[in-house]
Every structure is written in structure tokens, then in C-alpha cells.
């Protein structure tokens, strides 16, 4: 039988899943219940069906979903090992997430007015902010969770996508908007109003992502040095002001420079993360043989450290490489896309994935100050998984040629 290269990755993925699941089953042998078992089987079926369905219906990119499948498999197995309850829940979220993925993929393909709804994106963003402030509850120092009908979610996860669409709609219709001399300043003002609101919510990580997406897209699409300079000076000014005004910003910087004197209080999280990564060494302790339970938020913000402890820094580096590949495919999709609006959306989403991974991994290994964020597709959490798949669906849609009026092309 000839084995075609295009089937190798999915086979590797299956081998990985089967081996790691059998190990988890052994680990939980004494209290192996039906749910645990079903989750394992569920994961394999989920990966198999979603990949083969996608292959059938999408003529676009074949890589991104595969890369993401590997990511969420690693994540689910780690979460499953930490707590089988959370593992079952995470699988449910993945199911919903993949549903949302297909939904957003079809919606983006079928509806063609995305570039004309700039006010909607603005409204959604401010609406979500308002909702957060009114209904939000404070969790771990940040007010960024909203609880509706027993389901809590982070509105900022959706706001990120609204921001990308807003910027795409703006730069797509740049000629129209630039009749107003101040349009670029207004956009900058809007973006910074988001960032300011996030600062108030103490959601520093998301604020950084917003800033990164804006700066990246502005660099590509805005011709005018002074705008870029203004953006950078605003960032420096805002950062300094934030450091001086907000204690929570100061704490992040102090514990980044040297967390060891504060090992029992404000430096606890980061030092526990470093202990885990150090303990894991190159290949890890082996699944079920480490102590990820010592890390706070081991299945969430610090899942990278948990994975590094039990599966080794090599797996950690593997995850970083998967993100590089995902971002690369996203940028490639943008370069191949000849409709400017979808090009910008693809870029924005790829930037978002890349930045978010960089910020939380960098924080967990103390390359940059720690800010609470989830690792897309890997961390536990409904809002994070669903919104990441929503964005991925849009990216998948953007990877297909959108045949439109040629007037916009160059």
C-alpha cells in the first residue's frame, strides 16, 4: 500500500492520541468510569470526523485545522490528566467549538456584506465592554467574566474579533474614509479607548493583544509615519502611566524582574511555573509522574508549564513550533487572498493567535511580565476554546478564494 504524504500527519495524530489516552486510562485505572472512557473515544472520533468533513467541504487551506487538532489533543490530554472532570467538560467545549468553527466558516462564505458593517463592529465592542462593567464579576483581580444563565464567559474574547473586523472594514474602505482628514486619529482613539477599558478591567494580556493587532495592521496598511510614531509614543506613555498609576501593573513588572524574594506571595505563580518547567527538563517526567497540581491555574493560564513538566521542554518547543506553523499558514492565506477585506481579517486573526501564544508562553517562562491569558486551543476554558474556533472558522473561510468584483483588487 502506498502511503501518501498527506495522510501522515493525521495518522501521527491518531497514534499520539491512542497512546496518550491509554496511558491516561492506566493512570486512572482504579476509578475509571464511563465518562473518562467516553471522552477518550470522543476525542479520537472528533478529530477524525472534523478533519475528514473539512477535507470534503473546503477547498481552502488543509493545514490549519490539522495543526489545531494536534494542539487541542495535547491540551485535552493534559487537562484530562490533571482532572478527568475538567477533561470531560473540555471535550464538550471542543465539540461546541468545532460546531462554531463550521458555522463561522459557512457564515463567512455565504454572507458577503462583512466589509460594510463597521458600525456594527463598533457597537458590538462597546456593548460587550458595557456588559462586562455592568454584569462582570472580579476573578483573580480582573473584572473580565460575565455570568449569564449559569454560563460564564469572557466578553473580551469576542471583542478581539470585533476589533479585527472593525480594522479590516476601516482599512478596506480606506479611500472612502480618508476623505475625512482625521479618520486615522479617530480609529486610533477608538482602539485606545478599548485598551484603556481593558486596563480598567485589569485585563492586561488582552490589552496587549489589542495593541499588537492594531500596531501590526497599521504598519501594513496605514501610510503615514506620524500615525505609527503617535501609536508608539502613546503605547510608551500609556505603559509608563499604567506602571505609575496601577499597583497591579507594578506587581507584574517587579515579579518579572526578580520573583524570588516574593516567592510566597506575589511571585508565587511565576516561581511555581518555573519550578515545573525546570523539573520537566528536556523530555518531562512522563505523563502522570509530575506534580502539575502545584502550579496555580495549571490547566488554564499555566498549561504550558504543566505540559513542560510532564511532557518536557521539547514538547513545549513543539507547541511553539505549531503556533509558528499556524501563524505562517494564516499569513500565507492572507497573501493568497485577493480580496483585501478578507486578507486583513486573515492577518488580524493570525496575529491574534500568534500574539496570544507569545504573551502567555513568554509570561509563563518569565521572558516577559506575566499577564493572565489562555493559550489558544490548548488551555481549558469555554470562552477561549469557542472564540478561538470562531476565529479559526473565519480564517478557514478566508483561505478560499472569494470571487468578488475585481475593482478592489490592487
Amino acid at each position: 500500500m502506498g502511503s501518501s504524504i498527506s495522510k501522515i500527519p493525521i495518522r501521527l495524530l491518531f497514534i499520539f492520541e491512542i497512546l496518550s489516552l491509554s496511558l491516561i486510562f492506566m493512570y486512572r485505572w482504579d476509578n475509571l468510569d464511563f465518562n473518562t472512557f467516553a471522552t477518550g473515544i470522543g476525542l479520537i472520533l472528533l478529530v477524525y470526523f472534523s478533519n475528514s468533513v473539512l477535507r470534503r467541504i473546503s477547498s481552502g487551506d488543509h493545514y490549519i485545522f490539522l495543526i489545531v487538532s494536534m494542539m487541542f489533543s495535547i491540551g485535552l490530554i493534559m487537562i484530562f490528566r490533571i482532572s478527568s472532570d475538567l477533561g470531560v467538560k473540555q471535550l464538550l467545549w471542543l465539540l461546541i467549538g468545532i460546531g462554531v468553527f463550521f458555522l463561522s466558516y459557512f457564515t463567512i462564505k455565504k454572507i458577503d456584506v462583512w466589509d460594510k458593517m463597521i458600525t456594527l463592529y463598533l457597537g458590538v465592542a462597546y456593548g460587550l465592554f458595557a456588559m462586562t462593567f455592568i454584569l462582570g464579576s472580579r476573578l483573580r483581580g480582573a473584572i473580565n467574566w460575565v455570568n449569564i444563565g449559569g454560563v460564564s464567559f469572557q466578553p473580551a474574547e469576542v471583542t478581539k474579533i470585533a476589533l479585527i473586523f472593525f480594522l479590516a472594514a476601516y482599512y478596506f474602505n480606506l479611500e472612502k474614509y480618508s476623505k475625512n482628514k482625521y479618520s486615522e486619529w479617530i480609529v486610533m482613539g477608538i482602539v485606545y479607548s478599548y485598551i484603556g477599558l481593558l486596563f480598567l478591567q485589569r485585563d492586561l494580556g488582552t490589552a496587549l493583544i489589542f495593541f499588537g493587532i492594531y500596531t501590526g495592521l497599521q504598519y501594513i496598511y496605514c501610510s503615514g509615519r506620524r500615525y505609527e510614531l503617535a501609536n508608539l509614543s502613546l503605547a510608551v506613555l500609556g505603559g509608563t502611566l499604567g506602571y505609575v498609576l496601577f499597583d497591579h501593573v507594578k506587581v507584574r513588572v517587579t515579579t518579572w524582574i526578580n520573583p524570588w524574594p516574593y516567592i510566597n506571595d506575589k511571585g508565587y505563580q511565576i516561581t511555581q511555573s518555573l519550578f515545573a518547567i525546570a523539573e520537566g527538563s528536556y523530555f518531562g517526567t512522563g505523563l502522570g509522574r509530575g506534580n502539575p497540581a502545584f502550579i496555580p491555574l495549571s490547566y488554564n493560564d499555566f498549561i504550558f508549564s504543566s505540559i513542560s513538566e510532564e511532557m518536557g521542554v521539547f514538547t513545549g518547543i513543539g507547541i511553539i513550533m505549531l503556533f509558528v506553523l499556524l501563524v505562517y499558514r494564516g499569513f500565507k492565506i492572507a497573501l493568497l487572498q485577493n480580496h483585501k477585506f478578507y486578507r486583513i481579517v486573515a492577518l488580524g486573526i493570525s496575529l491574534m493567535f500568534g500574539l496570544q501564544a507569545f504573551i502567555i508562553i513568554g509570561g509563563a517562562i518569565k521572558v516577559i511580565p506575566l499577564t493572565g491569558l489562555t493559550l489558544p486551543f490548548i488551555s481549558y476554558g469555554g470562552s477561549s476554546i469557542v472564540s478561538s474556533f470562531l476565529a479559526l472558522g473565519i480564517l478557514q473561510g478566508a483561505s478560499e478564494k472569494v470571487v468578488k468584483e475585481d475593482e478592489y483588487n490592487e
Partner: protein
Amino acid sequence: MFDILSVIFKYVFVIIIYLFIFTIIRMIYLDIKTIGSTTGDLKAYLKVLNPLDSIPYKMEDTYVLEDELTVGRSSDNSIVIRDPYVSKHHLKISLDESNYFIEDLKSSNGTMLNGNKLEDVSLLKTGDIIKAGDIELMFIHKG
């Protein structure tokens, strides 16, 4: 027992994850190479994805597409594949108003397009993977 397995598996996991990454890189690389290398005159062509030294019979690296092209085991085809699973006249690719279409010539083992069995005449797009027998061909069209 669990400990021993866990320790053995951790190496296996790292190997699998890296193999996964490198296969994807290789696929992407093949993609870029086919798109990037033969710029210039070639407008449309097929690229053989199997490593040439792994094929027990002679094949070219790329085949330029003109108006019409046939693939099969017999020597009167434009692309000859001496594979027992390939029919004498296996499939046909033809040009119609600047678009290429693929059609299976009722071959006994069928033609796969992007992993799906080809049933009807289909429009080819850049990056599509055609499979006949063990041979995989990538379709590239610079419009």
C-alpha cells in the same frame, strides 16, 4: 508498570509531535517549491509529489499542461505510470476557457482528488492533489 510505560511514552510523544511538525513543514515546502520554483513560462503543470527515487519506474518531476493531457499505464498517454493499480487510460485533464477540468476515464481503481474519489468532471484549482495508484500529482495553475 505504569511508570515504565509513562517514561517510554514520553520519548515516543516527543518523536511523534516532531514528526508531525516536520511532515507538515515538508508538505508546505513542497507547496512552495512547486509554486515558487518554476515561475516564468509555465502556466499550468502537474508536479509529482512522491519522491522520484521511491518510484520503481521512470517519471519526470513536472509535466507541463497544454490543451489536453491523459494519464495511464499504456505508452500512448502524456503521462505514463507503470503502476499495476493504474488503468491503461486512467484519467484526462482538459482545458476549457482558461480553466482545467479533470475527468476519470472509468479506471478500475478510480482517481482521488484531494482524498475524495472523483465521480464527475471537476474543476481543478491550484494545489489540488490528484492520486492515481500510488502516485500523487499536484496541480498548479498560474492564472
